[in-house]
């Protein structure tokens, strides 16, 4: 095959199918010019590939971005306590409905409608109170957890800064001592030189 018909660059960048690659391999074995050209392309690719990716200096922020905050209905939908409240309300409604429907079937031993309604109201009130207590407990726990996490993070950051400051102080002290020693030596040399000067 003629050299001009071969796409060595496509070969080098991995865009050739297996069959086309075999054709190039066969040709390159017997063609010094194409072999050298392919070597240079591979060398170029290797040099380019040696360039490492850099770490991103700071993460892309989204959670705190207003644009990404969920809509009100999404917030409710994803809220555990709110969903719990909704479920309990549904349950209470079902109990009330069951009480009224049950009265319509004689012989089932249901209580007087007035008593049933009162009972249902009591049940609903109790459930709501329990629900509220449960929600409050969960919110308190979540808040306490968030506060303690923030405090722990702050303490860790403070400790880190303190350690870094202490390290820097030690380094500065060492530099200062080294400089002092150097200047003392220099002063000593000057003194020796000045003492020797008049003698000559």
């Amino acid at each position, binding site marked *: 095959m003629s050299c001009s018909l071969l796409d060595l660059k496509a070969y080098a960048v991995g865009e050739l199918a297996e069959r086309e690659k075999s054709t190039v391999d066969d040709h390159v074995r017997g063609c010094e010019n194409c072999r050298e050209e392919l070597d240079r392309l591979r060398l170029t690719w290797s040099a380019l590939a040696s*360039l490492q990716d850099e770490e*991103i200096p700071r993460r892309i*922020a*989204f959670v705190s971005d207003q644009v990404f*905050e969920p809509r009100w209905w999404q917030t409710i939908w994803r809220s555990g306590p709110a969903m719990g409240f909704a479920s309990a309300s549904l349950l209470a409604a079902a109990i009330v409905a069951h009480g009224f429907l049950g009265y319509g079937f004689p012989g089932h031993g249901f209580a007087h409608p007035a008593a049933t309604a009162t009972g249902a109201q009591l049940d609903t009130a109790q459930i709501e109170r329990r629900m509220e207590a449960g929600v409050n407990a969960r919110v308190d726990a979540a808040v306490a957890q968030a506060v303690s996490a923030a405090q722990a993070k702050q303490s860790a950051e403070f400790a880190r800064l303190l350690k870094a400051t202490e390290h820097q102080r030690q380094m500065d002290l060492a530099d200062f001592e080294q400089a002092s020693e150097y200047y003392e030596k220099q002063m000593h040399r000057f003194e020796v030189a000045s003492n020797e000067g008049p003698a000559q």
Partner: protein
Amino acid sequence: MIFREVEDRDLIAKARRGHVDAYNVLVSRWEKRIFNYLLRLVRQREDALDLSQDVFLKAYQNIKKLDDPAKFPAWLFRIAHNEAYSLLRKNRPEGELTAVPEAATGLFPIEMTLAVRGALDRLSDDHREAVLLKVYQGFKFEEMAEILACPVSTVKSRLYTALDLLKQTLAPVNIGGAE
């Protein structure tokens, strides 16, 4: 790799339904690649960082327009390309630089890194971007054509010209012993 693709697809599906958490995971997976692509294209760290932020914001706002989750990488890089070129056009309307070959032979790793960066910097924006998408992001010609919104023939032409220019610097003729 297969698992990773499936996971990305799931995350995209969730993000389309408004799950910010799922989108944040996607961001954490792709931010480094997008940042490095933009950094090598616009060559200014702060610009690259700002553009990365804009890219992920626009991607989130438009994710419902992405019909095929498998095309997410090319779609995301298309947004990044548009953002980068808006900036490049604003900063440097002419945008074309002439490649000046300098041999990069027998170099230590740090020198090689500098030589590669220098060689890439001397390319025009179009040529450099073709190299970035192929060498560093591993896109196929068809995907590159989608990202750059141009024919495959143009993609090949840009990449091949760029390789010829880079070859003069990074693999001069005497390296292969041809002279």
